[in-house]
């Protein structure tokens, strides 16, 4: 095995892997970017059912209702001009209130947004990042995304 030959193998192997990685990334970008929409965007852009998206806006006043199972929460997110009905099963963050800003992540299903996570606006002083992410995960939302 000459040195040139070895290098050729390594370069070929590297290129093949790079190709595979690029293909993986591109295909994942194609399907798995979670776009942020306002309720108006959803009405205007005809977002298809079943795609993971984020919806942000205000929790509309008098729209929050618990279903009879005591667990599922129904409410509407509004951006002023349009509203989207949201259904969410689980605990909402402590800062979730009517009239407050929220961002919900989930999928549309026949006009209703089935949320998998609901993040509420949070107001905190700057903290070290190792800790900020912790807060964020706990539902006290603060991040780069659209923010109330």
């Amino acid at each position, binding site marked *: 095995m000459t040195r040139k030959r070895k290098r050729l193998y390594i370069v070929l192997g590297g290129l093949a892997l790079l190709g595979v990685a690029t293909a993986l990334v591109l295909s994942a970008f194609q399907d798995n970017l979670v776009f942020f929409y*306002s309720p*108006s*965007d959803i009405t205007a852009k005809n977002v298809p059912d079943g795609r993971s998206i984020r919806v*942000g*806006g*205000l929790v*509309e*006043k008098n729209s929050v209702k618990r279903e009879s199972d005591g667990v599922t929460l129904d409410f509407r997110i*509004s*951006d*002023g*001009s*349009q509203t989207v009905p949201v259904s969410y099963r689980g605990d909402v963050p402590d800062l979730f209130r009517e*009239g*407050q*800003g929220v961002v919900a992540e989930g999928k549309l299903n026949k006009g209703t947004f089935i949320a998998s996570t609901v993040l509420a*606006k949070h107001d905190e002083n700057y903290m070290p990042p190792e800790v900020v992410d912790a807060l964020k995960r706990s539902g006290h939302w603060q991040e*780069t995304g*659209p*923010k*109330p």
Partner: protein
Amino acid sequence: MRRLLYLLPVALFVAVAVYFLLALDPNRDPSRLPSAMIDKPTPVFALDGLAGGKGLSLDALKGQVVLVNFFASWCEPCRDEHAILMKLGKDSSVQLYGIAYKDKPEDTQRFLQQLGDPFRAIGLDQTGRTAIDFGVYGVPETYVIDKQGRIRLRHVGPLTEADVAKELMPLLKSLQNS
């Protein structure tokens, strides 16, 4: 050729660094909200005022360039920005109006008595309906409405001196001259 390969890491880093630099741009607001209302007609509203005040309606604003500030007595950042609003209120070229968002009239009254009242008129949006029509995310928020009654700017969060100098005043000037 082989040297070029060794230059690749540093070249990639330069690209990433330039992009970090752009991301640091202080004018880039990571909380920027795509507003659905920009350049749209201002939603119609007619709100009662404080006892003895005249209230605020869209009709009354028509034909002039105005600033509309959503505030509330319970909102801390609103207190922070109040000094700046007071300054704006003293400027005779600025038409500053206030909408008290989900606030008890007596609280609003006390708030303004303590800190001063910069507004030409105040509307009470106790239900929050007008705020929802405007697309308010949280108080304070400030809107610029042009002579044709279209929303031209939305500022989320408290105003700072820099916002006023760099963003608000130039826009107000150009709208007034148009």
